């Protein structure tokens, strides 16, 4: 499959905080071909630490995309039928303007002078891109976790532009527990002396803090079952305890590895800004009850949750479904059985793929 990586530039964007960001760049990839009627476009939204490289093999890194098992010819998001777009979110660090980008007025990275963002801002930036591609209505907007928040925001903010929304393992607003885990991550970064109030560019990044933040994150993405299955109490390369504080257990080794890997590909300030945007996200904000908030939505919905996901538990998806039902919206919902916790939507995709394939086919039929 051909992976096309692009960067789009826009003069400025107005943000929910009242400030303006100018100019901005949006990194995005596309897969498949836009049809003549421009009716087959699907916008895929990445989760917190993802990027625009959703599928295929990156010509730069040689790595598969984060949802390569869902997107491609013959896959759930069938690129021989649909035109799939994935953007890196505003505030990110993988090609789209974020705190590590150069502020044109100072010639230095924005760092903490970057304006605080919302999920609504990210979606507004994507809307600018979709407009510039000449696509009137998206056949579907989809994503898991933070990607699901964006799919919901799209359906409510631009109801005439979305035929179907597929929010997966997500919520209409973060619970205290979800905010709490994000705050632990942020505090780990800001407590690292290398963070230097965010002005670490060109110097040592706050690798220890960012790595600890990622370790906590990884725990919340797994489940008790999947960790027991994957690591148990197995020791790492030794028969007996080391009676010290080096790595003893497999799980320690895994978390340290994932933490240190993350430092190489993610910007600590982006971590702060994006987690804050997730915590601020509340679909009901300024819109009354959830049912009232969803009132403008015209899309068909497919909502999916996973049985072992304790970070975005099924009750949060069911709240969405109940509110949609009370507005008599077209909504399908199922809780899939999986042991992989929140990560299920990325790794345990066989059943999810069947659902998405059927749902998309029937949606596409209706717009033909």
């Amino acid at each position, binding site marked *: 499959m051909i992976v096309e990586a692009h960067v789009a530039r826009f003069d400025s964007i107005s943000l929910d905080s009242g400030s303006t960001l100018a100019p901005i760049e949006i990194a995005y990839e596309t897969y498949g071909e836009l049809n003549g009627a421009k009716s087959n476009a699907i916008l895929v939204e990445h989760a917190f630490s993802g990027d625009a490289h959703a599928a295929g093999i990156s010509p730069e890194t040689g790595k598969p995309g984060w949802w390569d098992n869902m997107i491609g010819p013959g896959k759930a998001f069938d690129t021989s039928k649909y035109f799939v777009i994935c953007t890196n979110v505003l505030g990110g660090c993988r090609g789209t303007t974020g705190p590590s980008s150069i502020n044109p007025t100072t010639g230095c990275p924005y760092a903490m002078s970057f304006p605080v963002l919302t999920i609504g801002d990210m979606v507004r930036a994507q809307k600018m891109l979709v407009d510039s591609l000449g696509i009137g209505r998206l056949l579907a907007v989809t994503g898991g976790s933070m990607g699901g928040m964006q799919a919901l925001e799209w359906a409510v903010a631009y109801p005439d532009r979305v035929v179907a929304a597929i929010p997966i393992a997500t919520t209409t607003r973060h619970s205290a527990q979800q905010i709490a885990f994000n705050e632990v991550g942020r505090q780990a970064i800001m407590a690292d002396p290398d963070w230097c109030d965010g002005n670490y560019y060109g110097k040592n990044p706050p690798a220890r803090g960012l790595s600890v933040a990622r370790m906590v994150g990884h725990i919340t993405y797994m489940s008790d079952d999947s960790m027991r299955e994957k690591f148990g109490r197995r020791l790492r390369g030794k028969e007996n305890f080391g009676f010290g504080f080096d790595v003893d257990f497999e799980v320690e080794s895994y978390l340290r590895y994932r933490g240190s890997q993350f430092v190489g590909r993610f910007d600590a300030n982006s971590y702060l800004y994006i987690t804050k945007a997730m915590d601020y996200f509340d679909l009901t904000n300024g819109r009354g009850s959830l049912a009232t908030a969803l009132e403008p939505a015209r899309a068909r919905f497919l909502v999916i949750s996973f049985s072992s996901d304790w970070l975005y538990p099924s009750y949060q998806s069911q709240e969405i479904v109940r509110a949609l039902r009370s507005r*008599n919206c*077209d909504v399908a919902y*199922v809780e899939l059985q999986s042991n992989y916790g929140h990560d299920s939507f990325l790794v345990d995709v066989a059943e999810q793929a069947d*659902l998405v394939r059927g749902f998309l086919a*029937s949606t596409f*039929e209706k717009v033909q």
Partner: protein
Amino acid sequence: MSAQPDQAFVRELLGRSDYAIIGEIVEPRTRVLDLGCGEGELLHWLAANKGVDARGVEIDGARVQRAIARGVSVFQSDIDEGLADYPGGAFDYVILSQTLQETRDPRRVLREMLRVGRRGIVAFPNFGHWRVRTAMLLSGRAPRTSLFPYEWYESPNIHFLTVQDFESLAALEKVTIERRYFLSGNRRITWRPNLFAEVAIYLLCNGAPGNRPR
């Protein structure tokens, strides 16, 4: 494909004669909710052949998956909870096909389906059929027939009702019966349905005949 309800012989729809009757009752381009819709076969047929806006409720996750995969909007929930969230009159028809006897509180389900739907379609196996009566009389045990094939400890049916029982309940609930159909296999039964009908199908609406929805 669908049956002529006035004929004595009913052709099957998707292997079921009650589906054929339901398929005939439902008007084209209406809004339909099927409670306990299984894998969404009936809804899929109604959407494809009658252009209805089809929705379903099903508790079994695997069946919900297959229904969604076939393009039908089904959500996983039990029937009681599934109905509660809908505004009144959200559907033209609410279908309860071979499910009433499996619900914990059939009276409430009946009321709720006629709140959410302008009309209700209820199909159920008739416990008053002569074969059921004979089986129980002769064996002295909980009857097992082709209609009620389960051992008592495995049966999903938690209430047993006859044609007459349902008519009494409809009267008690002041539900108007607009049409009734009785089937034995593929034959329409008109004489003594409480004794000879295997399956009964009712088209219901709320309130007195004068207040029927159009």
